[in-house]
C-alpha cells in the first residue's frame, strides 16, 4: 500500500490522495481498536502519556484562563451593572469554548507533537518496517491504543480544565472582587444547560480524535511526503506540520461543531 504513483499528478490531486490515505489510516486504526484481541496495557500506557502527564499543564492553564476571564468579565459587566452574571459568563465561556479548545491546544503541544516525532522517528529508523516484518500490525500495536487514549483523555482533561477554571474565576470574582458566592454559583447553574455540556463533551471527543489522528498519520506516512528530506529534517518538518495542522483543524471544527449544535 506504500506504492502509488504521484509523480505525474497535480498538487490538488496529490493532496486529495494524501487526504484519502489519512482517511484510510483513521478507518483502519479505528476498526482495529474495536476488534479483538483487546489489550489493556498499551492503552493504559498511552492514557498515562496523553492524560496523566498532561494534568499539571492543564491545571495551571485552567487556573489562569479562569482567572483572566473572570477579570475581563468583571470589568465589562461592571460597565453594564450586571455583576451578578459573572458566574454564568465564566461558566458558559469555559464550558462552551475555552475549555475544549485550550485543552486541545495544550494537548497538541504536549502530547501530539511528541507522538508525531516518536512515530516519525520509528518510520525513519525502519522500526515500523520491522514491526511489519515481525507480523505485528502497526495499527493495532501503535495506533489503536493512542486513538482510544485520545478519545478517553481529552474529555477528562477538558472537564478538569473547566473545573479548575471555574475555581480560578471564583478566586478573582468572589475572593478578590467581592462578588457574592451565592450569585456566582446560582447564576452559573441557572444558565448552563445540558446542551452546553453536550457541546463541550462532543467537541472534546472530536478534538481528542483529531489530535491523535493527525499526529500519528503525519508520523506514520512521513515517507509519502516527498517534498522534503526523509531523515531527521523530515521528522522536524512533519512535527511542525502536524502541530500547525491539528491546531487549525481544532479551531475549524470548533466553529463547525458550535454552528451545528447551537
Amino acid at each position, binding site marked *: 500500500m506504500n506504492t502509488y504513483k504521484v509523480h505525474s499528478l497535480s498538487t490538488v490531486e496529490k493532496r486529495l490522495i494524501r487526504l484519502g490515505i489519512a482517511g484510510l489510516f483513521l478507518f483502519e486504526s479505528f476498526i482495529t481498536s474495536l476488534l479483538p484481541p483487546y489489550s489493556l496495557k498499551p492503552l493504559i500506557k498511552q492514557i498515562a502519556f496523553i492524560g496523566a502527564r498532561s494534568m499539571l499543564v492543564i491545571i495551571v492553564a485552567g487556573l489562569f484562563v479562569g482567572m483572566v476571564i473572570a477579570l475581563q468579565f468583571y470589568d465589562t459587566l461592571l460597565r453594564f451593572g450586571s455583576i451578578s452574571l459573572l458566574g454564568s459568563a465564566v461558566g458558559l465561556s469555559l464550558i462552551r469554548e475555552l475549555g475544549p479548545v485550550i485543552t486541545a491546544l495544550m494537548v497538541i503541544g504536549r502530547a501530539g507533537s511528541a507522538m508525531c516525532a516518536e512515530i516519525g522517528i520509528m518510520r525513519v529508523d*525502519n*522500526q515500523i*518496517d*520491522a514491526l*511489519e*516484518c515481525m*507480523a*505485528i500490525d502497526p495499527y493495532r*500495536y501503535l495506533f489503536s491504543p493512542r486513538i482510544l487514549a485520545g478519545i478517553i483523555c481529552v474529555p477528562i482533561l477538558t472537564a478538569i480544565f473547566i473545573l479548575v477554571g471555574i475555581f480560578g474565576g471564583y478566586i478573582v470574582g468572589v475572593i478578590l472582587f467581592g462578588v457574592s458566592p451565592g450569585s456566582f454559583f446560582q447564576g452559573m447553574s441557572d444558565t448552563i444547560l445540558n446542551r452546553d455540556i453536550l457541546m463541550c463533551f462532543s467537541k472534546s471527543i472530536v478534538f481528542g480524535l483529531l489530535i491523535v489522528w493527525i499526529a500519528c498519520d503525519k508520523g506514520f506516512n512521513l515517507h509519502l511526503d516527498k517534498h522534503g528530506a526523509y531523515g531527521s529534517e523530515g521528522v522536524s518538518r512533519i512535527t511542525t506540520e502536524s502541530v500547525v495542522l491539528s491546531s487549525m483543524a481544532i479551531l475549524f471544527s470548533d466553529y463547525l461543531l458550535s454552528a451545528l449544535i447551537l
Partner: protein
Amino acid sequence: MNNPDIENIIEIEGLNTWYGDRQILSDISLNVVRKEIMVIMGHSGSGKSTLLRHMIGLSKPESGSIKLLDKEITSLDRKELHKLRRRIGVAFQNGALFSSMTLQENVELPLREHTKLDQNTIRIMSRLKLELMNLSDSESLMPAELSGGMLKRAGLARAVVMDPEVLFFDEPSAGLDPATSAELDDLILQLRDAMNMTIVVVTHDLDSAFKIADRITVLDNGRQIITGSKEMIRNFPDPRIVNMLERRAMDDLVDADDYLDKLTRN
C-alpha cells in the same frame, strides 16, 4: 510448517520496479533454495535493498512475480502477508530496535505478540537467542546504550527468536570494523548450520560475501549481472565483476563525452 517438498524457498521472475521515471530494478529473476545462503551484492544504489524490500513484501513491484515459501506475495492481502511473515525473520541494517524497550523486551516482543507462552518460557527462549548472539550480559540495556555491532546482533536475535524458516539480513557488515563483521559472518553460518535456515544477505562487502555465500547475485544499476556460485563469479569475464573483485572504481568504464556532459550540465 516445514514442507520439505518446496525446494525453492524464494522464486522471483521478471521483477521490474520504478521510482518515478527511474527504473530501480529491471527484469530480475532468481531463486533461493532451501538451506542456502544467497548473497545479493552490488554498489550503493544498485537496487539491492529495494530487491530485499520486495522479497519481504514491504513494497510492491510494478511487474513480475515473487514467490516466498510458495506464496505469491505480490497478490497477498495484509492478513495473509502477516501470516506468511511469521515464518520469516528480517534483520535490518541498523537493528531497528524499539528505543523505548530494553534489549530483552525487544527480543521478546515477537514471542509475546504471537505465542501464548508464559513469561518464564519467553524469557528462556529470548535468553537462548541473546546467548547465541553473545549479548546475554547486555539484556537489560536500552538500544541507545549499545554499539553498532551489538545493535546488529540484537536485531538478528530478534529476527530469529521465532525460529523462522527464512532469514533476511540487510547489510550485516555496513559500518562495522572487519573483526566485528567477521564475527557476524560466523553467526550467520552458525544459524544456517544449527537451525537449518535459508538465508538471504544483502551486502556490499566482498570478503563477507565470499565467506558466507553458497551463491551470489550481483546487481549493477538495477540489472542482474549474474547469479551463481562463488567460482562462477570469480571466473565471470564481465568487466563490471572483474572491477568489483579487484576493487577498482567503475569510472574507467565511463564514456568521456558522457562524463564531460555530466560535469557541464546545468
